[in-house]
């Protein structure tokens, strides 16, 4: 049979005598677990290649194909060529003739040479691993499962050398399976033929979806790894880079592939197949529970139908219920939980149903049947729930239509819902109609806050910067605080210490405030300077005189503390406080 490849490009019109086809393979002898690369080189044409036919590929699987172009100039002659590359995986052992490949360009037909490939049997894993630093294997636990029965696929990556890059893993194609990952990755060590390997294992549960011959595709992995030679070199003192004289030891890129796995999937038996079997395979239990047994007519009862066991619970269909004239039935929510036990997928699936009694009296929700196929026993099993008795009181009104609509002609409903889900009993959080959070003043304020915070931070930062760099500014800003501090000290010592200390603080409070505001030293200041500053700030003559009197008294008291009465000290404190408050309100510069 000729293997037909897809069209590869647009047309060109090369001269017929310039075109030639050559076919090569990467190895003439391989084993069954190896991949061989087939290259067809078409010289004399670079694009617009027609469809080539290659004979002799019946016993191979084409895993990938690619195309590359090459232009070379030798002695001024331009030579164009296209290389078509195919990766072939042998299906069986033997000697095979591949080719010739045939290509029609214009009106001329071109043929390539023929290559011969000998495929030997795959060595046992232990033997093969002895020679290999890295290898990949994919194994399954059963070769002929039933449709829907779990097949466990284990992909194992063995390595006895260091990896120099992250492995690029391509999982196998599982077109004819429903797939569930059991264990994403597990690492452990294993000894094979005296060699210790680090094994990375990925376990997947596969459920065949059709009977017949099906295939689990090949698994691929590409990684850069250190070779054994390089490992040995590491222990060799003369393999030091100093002695290597520019030699590179970057490892090599290794492309590993597992062989595709063929399975024969058995169809489920047709004899003794119950009419209500809907495809469930595994081992399951089935039970029903309800939230209440006594209810008023037209009030809902919630019934949970629970299917639990081993198998693909995700695909379990809703259990069938017979027609119930006494109830309106609404489909409720469906929930499922998957779990793994001893490498087998299982879990439970809960189907909620809402039953609303239509009449009063002793009503019964009949038992519901669930049929599954047990692959271990190779037979169909039927399990059923127990009937549920409901006592309905009161009287119902109106009539009920199960489905108010009929679907448009030709439209598929495509789900297991027979009608809408039931109403909600709780109104939830009521909010103003047409509420849009973006227009909520609280929300707007919250979002303005970061901008204000940034603005505030900028202001604080600039103030701090100025305080650090501008001494006049810093002194002026701190003048009031310093003056208040001195007044506070004066108030403390007014009754506990000597009058000279008290008046010293009073004088200092006034002088230091004016000095800080004007950014001059207080030590060189005189009372006249203070009075001048007050005059410039717009103080009246009487206010300036009051200040002069206070400061004069303070200077006098420092040298005649003994003659100052306590009442005068108290009065001086009050005068000083009033004066400073007044000064602080004025703009002294």
């Amino acid at each position, binding site marked *: 049979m000729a293997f037909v490849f897809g069209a590869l490009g647009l047309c060109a019109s090369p001269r017929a005598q310039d075109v030639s086809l050559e076919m090569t393979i990467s190895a003439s002898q391989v084993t069954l677990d190896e991949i061989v690369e087939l290259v067809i080189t078409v010289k004399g044409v670079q694009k617009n290649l027609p469809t080539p036919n290659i004979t002799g590929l019946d016993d191979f699987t084409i895993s990938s194909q690619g195309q590359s172009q090459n232009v070379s100039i030798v002695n001024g002659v331009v030579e164009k060529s296209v290389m078509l590359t195919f990766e072939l995986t042998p299906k069986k052992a033997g000697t095979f003739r591949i080719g010739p490949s045939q290509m029609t360009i214009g009106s001329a037909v071109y043929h390539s040479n023929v290559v011969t490939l000998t495929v030997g049997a795959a060595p046992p894993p232990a033997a093969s691993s002895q020679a290999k630093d890295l290898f990949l294997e994919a194994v399954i636990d059963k070769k002929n499962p039933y449709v829907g029965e779990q097949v466990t696929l284990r992909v194992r990556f063995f390595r006895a050398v260091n990896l120099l890059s992250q492995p690029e893993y391509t999982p196998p194609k599982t077109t004819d399976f429903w797939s569930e990952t059991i264990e994403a990755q597990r690492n452990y060590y294993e000894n094979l033929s005296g060699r210790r390997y680090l094994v990375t294992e990925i376990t997947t549960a596969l459920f065949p979806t059709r009977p017949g011959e099906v295939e689990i595709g090949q698994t691929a992995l590409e990684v850069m790894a250190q070779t054994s030679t390089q490992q040995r070199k590491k222990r060799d003192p003369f393999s030091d880079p100093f002695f290597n004289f520019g030699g590179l030891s970057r490892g090599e890129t290794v492309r590993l592939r597992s062989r595709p796995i063929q399975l024969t999937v058995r169809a489920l038996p047709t004899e003794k197949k119950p009419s209500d079997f809907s495809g469930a395979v595994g081992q399951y239990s089935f039970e029903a529970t309800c939230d209440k047994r006594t209810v008023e007519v*037209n009030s809902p009862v919630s019934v949970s139908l629970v299917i639990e066991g081993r198998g693909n619970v995700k695909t379990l269909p809703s259990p069938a219920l017979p027609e119930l004239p006494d109830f309106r039935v609404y489909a409720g*929510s469906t929930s499922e939980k998957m779990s793994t036990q001893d490498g087998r997928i299982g879990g439970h699936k809960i189907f909620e149903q809402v039953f609303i009694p239509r009449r009063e009296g002793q009503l019964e929700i009949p038992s519901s049947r669930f049929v599954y196929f047990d692959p271990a026993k190779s037979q169909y099993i039927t399990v059923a729930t127990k009937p549920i008795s409901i006592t309905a009181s009161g009287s119902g*009104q109106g009539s009920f239509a199960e489905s108010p*609509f009929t679907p448009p002609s030709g439209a598929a409903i495509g*789900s297991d819902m027979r009608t809408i889900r039931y*109403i909600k009993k*709780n*109104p939830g959080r009521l909010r103003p109609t047409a509420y849009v959070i973006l227009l909520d003043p609280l929300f707007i304020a919250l979002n303005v806050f970061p901008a204000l915070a*940034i603005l505030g*931070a900028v202001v604080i930062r600039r103030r701090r910067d100025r305080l650090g760099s501008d001494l006049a500014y810093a002194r002026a800003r701190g003048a009031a605080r310093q003056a208040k501090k001195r007044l506070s000290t004066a108030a403390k010592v007014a009754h506990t210490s000597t009058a000279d200390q008290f008046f010293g603080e009073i004088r200092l409070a006034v002088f230091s405030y004016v000095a800080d505001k004007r950014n001059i030293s207080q030590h060189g200041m005189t009372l006249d300077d203070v009075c001048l500053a007050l005059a410039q700030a717009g103080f009246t003559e009487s206010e300036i005189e009051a200040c002069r009197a206070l400061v004069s008294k303070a200077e006098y008291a420092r040298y005649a503390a003994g003659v100052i009465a306590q009442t005068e000290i108290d009065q001086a404190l009050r005068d000083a406080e009033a004066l400073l408050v007044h000064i602080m309100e004025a703009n002294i510069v």
Partner: protein
Amino acid sequence: MIGVTATFCLVAPARAELETDAFTRGNAHYDSLRYDSAIAAYESAMREGAESSALYYNVGNAYFEKRDLGRAILYYLRAQRIDPGDPDIRDNLAFARRFVKLQMTGVELNPVTDALRAVTTPWSLTAWAWLASACLLALGGVIVWRILLRRGGFLIHTLFGVTSALAVVAVTLVTFKYRVEFAAPRAVVVLDDIPVRARPAESAAVEFRAAAGLEVEILEESAGFALALFENKRRGWTPADAIERL
């Protein structure tokens, strides 16, 4: 001011109680198959100025049972706008849509819009808005920290980069969500077999006929007609009373 606050505090719980009573009354009517009465009760709760996803969902159910497919879809969409993650709303909307007599499909969406829609669909505008606020607060915090402490280096730059990117993404998604769900005037055809005309006039040629339940975007309104953009990008003038805004 205190008086107003006190009045609000007294009135607000009383109003909430009224709304809840109307909701419960609506449910009782629904269970008794009196769908018109149920809708009236639910609408009285809405007239009080309240909405919730459950309220809209129940109204949608009542309209569905009343065989008013257009309004059922309208209320499911309103419910979904408040609570996009509710599986009951999602399932009932999907179920109701299957009964729409005319399916407007066949036009590929803009891939960017499609991707943004896919990302924003699982959460409501409120949830996205809170997320964006949190990102903005975090970004503000990082900037304030940077300004006040004069900190530089890898950590602060990384935090600034991450929070800036998150804030930009979140604000973009919020803007998109708001534009799609609130700024663009969306509506649902609530009457069946509606003529869609080339011009806003009764005498204009009928281009095609719309079915109840179709979702549209209103582009323009004129003389009792609305220029509706359908999901398959077809457009035409429909009677204004045949569509209801979301």
